[in-house]
């Protein structure tokens, strides 16, 4: 299991952010109450929330210093779906273990794509972290938003579970906790923040979030550090740099030279995940041998991430 050693058991993320979020919340509530008193009607109230200027949580506050603008690139030439090492996709495994992704979900999906001529190739799918994100537009309560580093986060304390964002997402990266999610003993101790949404909450939407808690500490996302092929790059658009944990490249040059593209570019969502097109060959095995993609396992079967006292119960599955 790669990269389990540095997984934070209780990440020390976002102390300041939490305080700020709390203040923001209070302001919003006060604004809301004032309005409710003034209007005395349900329907009109949200409007005044806008008027008193408590709009989008991610209103790009002018900060000092360099602001990271996270992006990712996935080199499909290198991705073999981990079929050549006979394991489930390690990016998914790493992600599951990092976030205790509940049973029945996987935030990263590795698609098996059949190209012309019957060649199979693989495509790991993360959240695209769109700049013009359809999901943040349609959220009725502003529970999903961009942080100032361009990552789309979800405030699980605010999400009402309407799933409008899931309907709007053209990349189908969002997942929903349909029932009570399984939180192992290790996970229940973690301190919740939108950047590290553990423990998971029933009736709320979940998704990949470029490991916001890891990248802010200068670490690669769990998927990138778990990838045995170094196919996943973390990039920063501000400094124009990217790395896969092995080499450092100039991001714009890397994409330009390798023909980087984005999924569904025509929608104008401006995703921040680029793909380097594959070479159209079956990776690592001959054309005749069919090696299917192994379904990813849950964190439960990766004992390393669990506390010693056994497996937690889970009884629902979708």
């Amino acid at each position, binding site marked *: 299991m790669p990269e389990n050693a540095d997984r934070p058991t209780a990440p020390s993320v976002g102390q300041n952010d939490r305080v700020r979020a709390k203040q923001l919340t209070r302001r919003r509530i006060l604004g809301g109450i004032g309005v409710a008193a003034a*209007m005395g*009607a349900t*329907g*009109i109230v949200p*409007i005044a929330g*806008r*008027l008193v200027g408590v709009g989008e949580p*991610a209103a*790009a506050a002018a900060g000092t*210093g*360099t*602001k990271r*603008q996270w992006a990712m690139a996935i080199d499909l030439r290198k991705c073999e779906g981990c079929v050549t090492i006979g394991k489930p996709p390690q990016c998914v495994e790493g992600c599951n273990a990092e976030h205790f992704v509940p049973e029945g979900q996987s935030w990263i999906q590795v698609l098996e794509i059949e190209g012309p001529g019957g060649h199979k190739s693989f495509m790991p799918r993360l959240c695209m972290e769109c*700049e*013009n*994100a359809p999901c943040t537009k349609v959220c009725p309560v502003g529970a999903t938003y*961009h942080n*100032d*580093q*361009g990552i789309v986060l979800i405030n699980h304390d605010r999400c009402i579970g309407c799933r409008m964002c899931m309907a709007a997402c053209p990349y189908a990266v969002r997942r929903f906790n349909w029932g009570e999610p399984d939180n192992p003993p290790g996970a229940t101790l973690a301190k919740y923040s939108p950047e590290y949404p553990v423990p998971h909450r029933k009736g709320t939407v979940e998704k990949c979030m470029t490991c916001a808690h890891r*990248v802010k500490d*200068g*670490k*690669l996302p769990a998927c990138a550090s778990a990838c045995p092929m170094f196919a996943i790059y*973390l990039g*920063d*658009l*501000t*400094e*124009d*740099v*990217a*790395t896969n*944990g*092995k*080499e*450092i*490249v*100039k991001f714009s*040059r890397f994409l330009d030279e390798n023909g980087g593209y984005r999924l569904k570019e025509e929608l104008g969502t401006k995703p921040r995940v680029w793909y380097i097109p594959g070479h159209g060959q079956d990776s690592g095995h001959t054309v005749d041998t069919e090696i299917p993609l192994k379904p990813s396992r849950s964190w439960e079967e990766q004992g390393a991430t669990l506390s010693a006292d056994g497996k937690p119960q889970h009884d629902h599955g979708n």
Partner: protein
Amino acid sequence: MTTFARVRIVLAAVLVAVSLGSLVVAGTASAEDAVKITVKVTDSGFEPSTVEVNQGQSVELTFLWAQTAHPGDEHIIVLDGYKLESEKIDRVHTSTTLKFIATKSGTFNFACDIECDIHAILQGGVLKVKAGGSGGATLTQSKIAIDPVADVKVKGDVITLLATLTGADGQPIPKAELMFLVEQQFAGQTGLMVVGTAETGPAGLAQLSYRPSRTDAEKMVIRFEGLGVYDVSEASVDLPGSQAFGTALAPGDNTLHGIKTWAHLGFILVIGGVWVAFGFILFQVWKLSRPPSGGGARP
């Protein structure tokens, strides 16, 4: 807005002609002179088509234009493996010479690289370098010296770097690739990041357009990986801090987003108006419940 701050980083070739190094080179060269081989380019192909040298030998491979059937033909010969590219030869400039030291053993291909009249038959040139030879030739040093550029102001703009690559023998080194790298630290990784490459021209001059993307000072390394008889060399320069390259997250950069404010206002006005109308109607109902001033017919 594309104002290009043109910064000339003059990589002056600092050449002291009489140096110990060149004496050494001259010494070895005189100890064993370069192997001189001439290959004729005729209408039926290279003549000879296979050339053999020993590893470590200094080689001067001359190509001679000797065609009769195609008087207008011209060629540029490339030698794979040594990354060498010749000058153009034709009826007027009939001769070109590739000078190199056969450091790598093996079989290498030389061929014409442009669409000449006899392109197909000029693909099969073979250079064999026999391993374990004791040519004893050593590479000529090359050197890049850099002037400091401390007073340069760069604010997120593209700068043009000009570099001249010269050998210790004073000759400019043309057709050589210079690699520009920056020391970078990111996401737990530290290393040299390639920011661009450029090829030197006839005067050994290479040019690279580069946009610094760091806010702090960065160290740029310019690397020459060796070519022909010239050895590897490297130089570095400190670039001052720049402005951020990337875009901050600005979902509102589309002018259409500006409509949003007005749309909100209109929406609020319409819905507010409707609720005011409700209020007015209910007020009418409330008025109904007031006893009429003139006394009603109510029992």
